[in-house]
């Protein structure tokens, strides 16, 4: 599929084709950008660094009903999973995270909740022209214009958006709006090259992960884990805001006779997460929990699925209340190898 151009003058019309049809885009809510539904007549402005919360909840809601039942009755009612959805303006790192997480949800047992929701979503990505302060996607296999996980990639060329379909779903979006689009000429393509190259050169933070996945086991008892977790307050922000963190809890909720089994995000940084009923905890302090978090992303996941479970979005750095910095942790890991 050839690349198409959308003049920014036609942006409201383009959005208008999808607004009100379960289109979600970043909107300013309070002090932060957050994915929210776009109603008819609304035109989201795609001028933002990234949303504070990744849009992972589109396929993996923070709390979701697995099934409903009545107490004393074994009849199980499955939930409706909703309708088709378009996420517009997702950053390449967050889309890549969805394809990384999908590997886990397909591992031997297909997870029907995640996979069916994921299937209903069309991802329209927006390449990053201005990487954030703590972005490091290009160190961990991503790029400001990565298309992994995306159906369509938009690149902001100043006066227009370049639109590149990645999948048939993305092509369908372009088809729907074909009256607004024109074929991109060689100048636009040249401009795209220059813009994305410049964006890449603006990424200031880097992780040299060479040797880390295979080197981490030998650092199991290294003093670095006590050092890097010393200030951790165990709030779980790093994991809740991580687009690749996928751990969940399952709980039964009962109100009168009506009940549901639901699952909700959980965090390996919480004490209860691995606590045995006996009171024994295999990861008793934040030292072990931090070590597990880093190992899970940079060692165990690589071992199982051949990809680092970190996309370099920088959220855990930006929003950690005590300034724990995964890039710095990885630098110390590297140093200790």
């Amino acid at each position, binding site marked *: 599929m050839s690349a198409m151009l959308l003049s920014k003058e036609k942006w409201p019309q383009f959005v208008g084709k999808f607004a009100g049809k379960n289109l979600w885009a970043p909107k300013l809510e309070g002090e932060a950008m957050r994915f929210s539904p776009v109603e008819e007549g609304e035109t989201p402005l795609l001028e933002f660094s990234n949303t504070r919360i990744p849009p992972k909840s589109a396929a993996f809601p923070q709390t979701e009903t697995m099934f409903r039942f009545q107490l004393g009755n074994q009849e199980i009612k*499955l939930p409706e999973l909703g309708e088709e959805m378009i996420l517009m303006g997702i950053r390449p790192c967050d889309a890549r995270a969805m394809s990384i997480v999908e590997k886990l949800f397909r591992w031997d047992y297909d997870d029907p909740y995640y996979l069916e929701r994921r299937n209903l979503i069309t991802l329209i990505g927006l390449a990053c022209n201005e990487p954030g302060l703590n972005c490091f996607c290009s160190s961990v296999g991503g790029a400001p214009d990565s298309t992994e996980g995306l159906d369509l990639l938009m690149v902001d060329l100043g006066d227009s958006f370049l639109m590149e379909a990645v999948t048939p779903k993305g092509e369908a979006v372009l088809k729907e709006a074909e009256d607004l689009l024109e074929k991109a000429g060689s100048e636009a393509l040249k401009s795209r090259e220059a813009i994305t190259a410049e964006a890449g050169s603006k990424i200031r933070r880097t992780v040299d992960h060479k040797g880390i996945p295979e080197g981490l086991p030998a650092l199991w008892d290294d003093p670095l884990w006590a050092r890097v977790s010393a200030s951790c307050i165990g709030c779980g922000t790093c994991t809740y805001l991580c687009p690749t963190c996928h751990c969940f809890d399952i709980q039964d909720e009962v109100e009168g006779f009506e009940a549901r089994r639901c699952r909700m995000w959980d965090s390996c940084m919480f004490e209860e997460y691995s606590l045995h009923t006996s009171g024994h905890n295999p990861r008793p302090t934040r030292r072990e929990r931090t070590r597990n978090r880093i190992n899970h992303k940079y060692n165990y996941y690589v071992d199982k699925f051949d990809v680092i479970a970190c996309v370099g979005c920088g959220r855990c750095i930006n929003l950690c209340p005590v300034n724990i910095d995964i890039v710095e942790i990885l630098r110390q890991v590297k140093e200790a190898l």
Partner: protein
Amino acid sequence: MTAENPYIPNFATIEDSWYETGGDRCIKTFKVVFTDPAVRDGWSHKPGQCAMIGVLGEGESMISISCSPTEGKFLRFSVMKMGKVTQALHKLETGDQISVRGPYGNSFPIDEWQGKKILTIGGGIGQAPLRPIVEYVKANRDKYAGLTMIYGARSSGDLCFKGEFDEMSKCDDLSCHLTIDIEEEGWSHNVGFVPQMLLDLNPSPENTIAVTCGPPIMIRFVLENLKKLGFSDDQIYTTLENRMKCGIGKCGRCNAGGMYVCKDGPVFNYSVLKNIPEAFA
């Protein structure tokens, strides 16, 4: 939603239940049969596997299946009364239903062990996952060169499956060695810890597979003593447990190092286990 939803439980009716032990953390065994005949006929498990069992409205717990498939078209679970779910299970009686998902996890490679002597070393509730091996070997005695069972608990009242041991002492190729931590009036078996009893029995490692399960501290010393007796790493197996929610490698928490106990385990050969840093954390 697809028909293949691994989170949807089946239901099984309690045909019989009894207490193995007493006290606050008593152990109750449930013998259950799937309510749906199609599920009953389609079910198959191997010794060492587990299932997520529970009570709707309370939740689920991963419990090892403590019977061998050779015993019949039923399942047995021996459940210690500990938290919310196991307390709810303990309230159930014959005729009540429990939810069951599974079977989950790998299993003891029991067919590969044919022709060998089997040595099981259990402590407390840790005998539950070993019991299927004992029953499987008893049902296939011509295929194995013998079975030695070492089983211990704090007191005689803390030993599970007590009624099942007498018949073993009547067979030449089966032997059962019981031990308790502290001397008791009327106790005719050994007194002492399980790892020490293993050393005292001094079993030959020749053509033998050793399988152990029990409290982490017991497993640690048993492993040490098996090495002292000359067992090689690949002759030793154990089975682990950790907190679990999904049972199918998604929810994240049961990993010991990079191994998900629910999926990569619960059975581990010592040659793998010794490289898992968190295995007995």
